């Protein structure tokens, strides 16, 4: 029986549940504490930085030789913007690091940080898209005219003709307010200088240790082999922990300079103000529809507030480019024109956050479908059905190829599960009692598991994408697989062990996955973009096959049979059709200690290396929500939430469902709760968890998940990525349900989060329209 498909408990869990996990802060005991002094103003010139006498305070002056962080896209419509590791002449956002204090304890470092005197001549900041784009607005970076760092677009098919011939044009501007990825563990770095080797070991709460090693080595002009980067247990990342950050560089610099161990453990206030944000976007969307609901053309103007700096290596263009290329989503549209811009402002920089723009564009498109249905007098699901891609492979008007999926089937399954007719009856009778229920759907397709063939289209100076895996069996018959991916909560060590177990023929508990240590693992790009199960998984499959073949050669000799007649399963090699068998540990022992007998594998031993670099595969899902709205308070309660997803073959359904649970919770948070609020001076008003409203178990309903399984050859394992999907699909379903609930009042919603206060405002506006 295959190990793939089983709901194995996660190997990662016992340690974490016992409290035996090792996070950076656990490793940092005894290290000196580093504390950053951060800018209290959004924009201004630094006049002076004065340290209290006797304290160790690092400033930009100390780091004159350190290169700024300046990731690039190799395309003419991109303006690179440089981020000094510590602010040098000016500050560009509240929370920007200006100085670093090193002291014996975190409390002492905080005391000293308070005494560092910083004089800044404040200047007028630009905080919002409107402020940044206003004529004559102050420039955040001199190089970026109009505060625009990327201004790009696509024009495919005959958009103008389609709009001219449209039965109805539906248009609105959809706004997504700024959010934080909010990992449970904030960021952290521990840099330890080794006096004997002169090397630095940097333990870091991160998703991409190899990229971080390269970035730090570049910044400090040091050989990469003098730096070991370890991602130990990591308490969530969601994209926020992909980029290289100034704090990493300063930690390594300080550990080398002072030949000691230095730890920076970010607190929540820092994380909410200075770690990356996401999703501050506005999309002016127009859809040309035929009378039958067919979407003839799509025209979009996308503006993304990218904050004060870029992020390395994917750059601040990641949101505008993703939004531009993926906006049509699961819908077949013959003509698509888009302009997409990244606008720099005096706010915290942006980084990828679970879904990267797709939660926003999916919500906008799903609002478009519902709004078109309402304008055309059609059923919302019928409009979707009319437009969903249904024959595969499908090449979009912009050249994106969708491998097979179940776009319609997922929606139909969700509709059946919810019994729409029964719901409509219940909705009617509830309205009679003054209760407002609403049902909303959201359909999406998500490109996942893509390697350099797709990433290279973005023209990043660092083209990420492949993953390499090194597999070796030791003389006891146990397996170690070293991966370049860097899981941080996904359960990847369990899923990859399951995959490898099937290929090698031993139980998964005999397979140890090693990740997150640049001294121990092959160069890889880490875990993000719904890629690891597909890409690292594909590499595991390829390496596992090689290792199995080597075991077969050993077995062939031991059993005096042809290798092609041998199967390895359940921990032993068996000559097919006989009872001749030998346990795998005996083969392993022989391969090492009788190696002279196995000349064909002497070069490799029982090890294999494989790389996988696919173009990508689309997973898809339909999310559906039932909400109830209290029209006296504006409160939205979720009564039911259904997800029908298709991620191809599920290696471990429980783990897949866990990914969906977390993503949907974040999606509901995006739709209803979470919002980073700046005032006009660029101060964050939501700097604690009392104000930045992360929903709790009380706000998230039970989630009902149904699986469909479309297997395509776009991924050699048949697996599609699923890490981000929950966050992508959920907000649109919630927003559509809110609009459905408020339909007696004619309220439409084109923003997220939709807060209770906003709902009452919209209801008030609607009443004043009708009276």
């Amino acid at each position, binding site marked *: 029986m295959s190990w793939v498909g089983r709901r194995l408990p996660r190997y990662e869990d016992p340690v974490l549940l016992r409290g035996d996990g090792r996070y950076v802060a656990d490793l940092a005991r005894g290290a000196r504490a580093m504390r950053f002094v951060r800018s209290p103003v959004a924009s201004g010139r630094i006049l002076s930085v004065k340290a209290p006498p006797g304290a160790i305070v690092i400033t930009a002056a100390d780091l004159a030789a350190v290169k700024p962080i300046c990731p690039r896209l190799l395309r003419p419509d991109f303006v690179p913007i440089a981020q000094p590791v510590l602010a040098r002449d000016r500050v560009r956002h509240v929370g920007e690091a200006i100085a670093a204090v090193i002291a014996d304890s975190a*409390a002492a470092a*905080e*005391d000293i940080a308070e005494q560092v005197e910083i004089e800044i001549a404040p200047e007028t900041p630009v905080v919002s898209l409107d402020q940044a784009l206003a004529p004559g607005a102050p420039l955040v970076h001199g190089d970026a005219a109009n505060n625009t760092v990327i201004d790009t677009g696509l024009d495919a098919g005959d958009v103008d003709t389609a709009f001219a011939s449209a039965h109805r044009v539906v248009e609105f501007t959809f706004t997504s307010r700024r959010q934080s990825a909010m990992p449970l563990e904030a960021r952290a770095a521990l840099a330890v200088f080794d006096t004997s080797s002169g090397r630095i070991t940097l333990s870091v709460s991160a998703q991409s240790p190899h990229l971080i090693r390269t970035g730090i080595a570049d910044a400090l002009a040091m050989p990469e082999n003098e730096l070991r980067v370890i991602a130990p247990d990591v308490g969530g990342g969601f994209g926020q922990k992909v980029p290289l950050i100034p704090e990493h560089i300063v930690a390594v610099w300080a550990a080398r300079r002072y030949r000691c161990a230095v730890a920076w453990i970010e607190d929540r*206030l820092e994380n909410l103000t200075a770690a990356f944000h996401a999703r501050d976007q506005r999309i002016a969307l127009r859809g040309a529809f035929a009378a039958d609901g067919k979407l003839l053309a799509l025209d979009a103007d996308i503006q993304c507030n990218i904050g004060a700096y870029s992020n390395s290596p994917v750059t601040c263009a990641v949101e505008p480019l993703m939004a531009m290329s993926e906006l049509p989503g699961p819908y077949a549209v013959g003509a698509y024109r888009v302009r997409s811009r990244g606008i720099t402002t005096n706010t915290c920089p942006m980084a990828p956050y679970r879904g990267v723009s797709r939660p926003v564009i999916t919500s906008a498109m799903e609002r478009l479908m519902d709004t078109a249905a309402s304008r055309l007098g059609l059923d919302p699901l019928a409009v979707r059905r009319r437009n969903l891609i249904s024959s595969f492979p499908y090449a979009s008007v912009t050249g994106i190829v969708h491998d097979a999926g179940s776009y319609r089937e997922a929606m139909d399954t969700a509709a059946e599960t919810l019994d729409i007719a029964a719901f409509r009856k219940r909705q009617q009778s509830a309205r009679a009692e003054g209760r407002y229920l609403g049902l909303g759907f959201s359909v999406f397709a998500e490109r996942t598991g893509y390697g350099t063939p797709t990433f290279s289209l973005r023209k990043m100076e660092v083209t990420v994408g492949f993953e390499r895996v090194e597999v070796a069996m030791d003389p006891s018959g146990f397996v170690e697989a070293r991966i370049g991916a860097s899981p941080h909560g996904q359960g990847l060590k369990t899923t990859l062990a399951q995959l490898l177990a099937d290929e090698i023929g031993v139980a998964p508990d005999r397979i140890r996955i090693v990740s997150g240590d640049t001294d121990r693992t092959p160069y890889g790009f880490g875990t993000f973009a719904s890629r690891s199960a597909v890409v690292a998984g594909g590499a595991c499959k390829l390496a596992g096959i090689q290792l199995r073949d080597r075991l077969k050669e050993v077995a062939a000799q031991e059993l005096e049979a042809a290798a092609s007649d041998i199967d390895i399963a359940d921990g032993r090699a068996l000559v097919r059709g006989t009872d001749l068998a030998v346990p795998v540990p005996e083969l392993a022992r022989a391969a090492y200690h009788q190696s002279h007998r196995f000349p064909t594998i002497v070069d490799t031993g029982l090890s294999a290396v494989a790389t996988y670099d696919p173009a990508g595969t689309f997973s898809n899902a339909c999310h559906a929500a039932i909400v109830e709205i209290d029209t006296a*308070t504006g409160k939205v309660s979720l009564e039911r939430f259904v997800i029908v997803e298709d991620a191809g073959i599920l290696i471990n359904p429980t783990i897949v469902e866990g990914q969906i649970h977390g993503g949907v919770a974040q999606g509901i948070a995006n739709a209803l709760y979470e919002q980073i609020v700046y005032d006009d001076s660029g101060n964050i008003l939501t700097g604690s968890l009392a104000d930045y409203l992360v929903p709790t178990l009380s706000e998230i309903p039970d989630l009902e998940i149904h699986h469909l399984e479309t297997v395509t050859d776009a991924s050699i394992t048949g697996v599609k990525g699923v890490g981000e999907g929950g966050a992508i699909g959920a907000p649109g379903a919630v927003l559509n349900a809110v609009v459905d609930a408020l339909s007696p009042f004619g309220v439409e919603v084109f923003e997220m989060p939709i807060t209770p*206060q906003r709902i009452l405002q919209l209801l008030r506006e609607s009443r004043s329209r009708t009276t």
Partner: protein
Amino acid sequence: MKPAAFRYFAPRTVEEALDLLAEHGDDGKILAGGQSLVPAMNFRLARPASLIDINRIAALDYLREEAGALRIGALARHARFERPVASGALGPFLPRVAHQIAHLPIRVRGTFAGSLAHADPASEWCVVAATLDAELVAESRRGTRNLRPDEYFTGALTTALEPDELLTEIRLPLLGDQWRSGFAEFSRRAGDYALAMCAAFLRIEQGRIVEARIGLGGAADRPARIAAAERLLIGSDGGDDAKRAAGDAAAQAIEPLVDVQADAEYRRDLVRAMVNRAVAQACG
């Protein structure tokens, strides 16, 4: 997120605590449950030079009925109120309120008196004290004062307590079984600070409200009874019109707090809704 340095004292008796307050009160703070103070210290928004921890003063840990009041000692934790602790109308009322306070770990540590000393406008117990015209007992080496809510609450997070005074006891007047109660609050998430809340006590005779206490919290800088709403309810049947009128009166009576979650208009909306619901509960 580490507090500034402070001196720590752990007195065993009220007298010792009052001595310490007399000595350090100006730049000192009482630590009871610490559920507001400690986070504020970690943010360095509060920087007491001395912390006087009263948790070892066993004599302050009590709840008892005496002379027509529920007497609440300074160390009675929120969680004590999750089950009925008082006779009469407060019996079912206090647990209903207690369950709305933050989350269980906070209720296990935080104290009733600590909430009153902290005087957060969104504190449930502050509203209860205001609505019931509780008596607040403040002790110092100079003597004992009994304060009434309208003189005690002087603004958001400020009270009439002097730096050398310890709030040792709160006396909630017991209400007879003929009183009916209601409590409604609105917060964005379960356990959050309320954006508005209302406590309602009504005495109803032959279908008419003959006495009313309506208290509001979370909506203005301090908790208070809303006389205008009470007047509108007295003599009415507590029906939809009366509830709506009382809600409107309450919404007009306050100077609304404005913050990231709620502007003035929305706060007034919430006040209307909470008054309506608390009264409906009391009438129901």
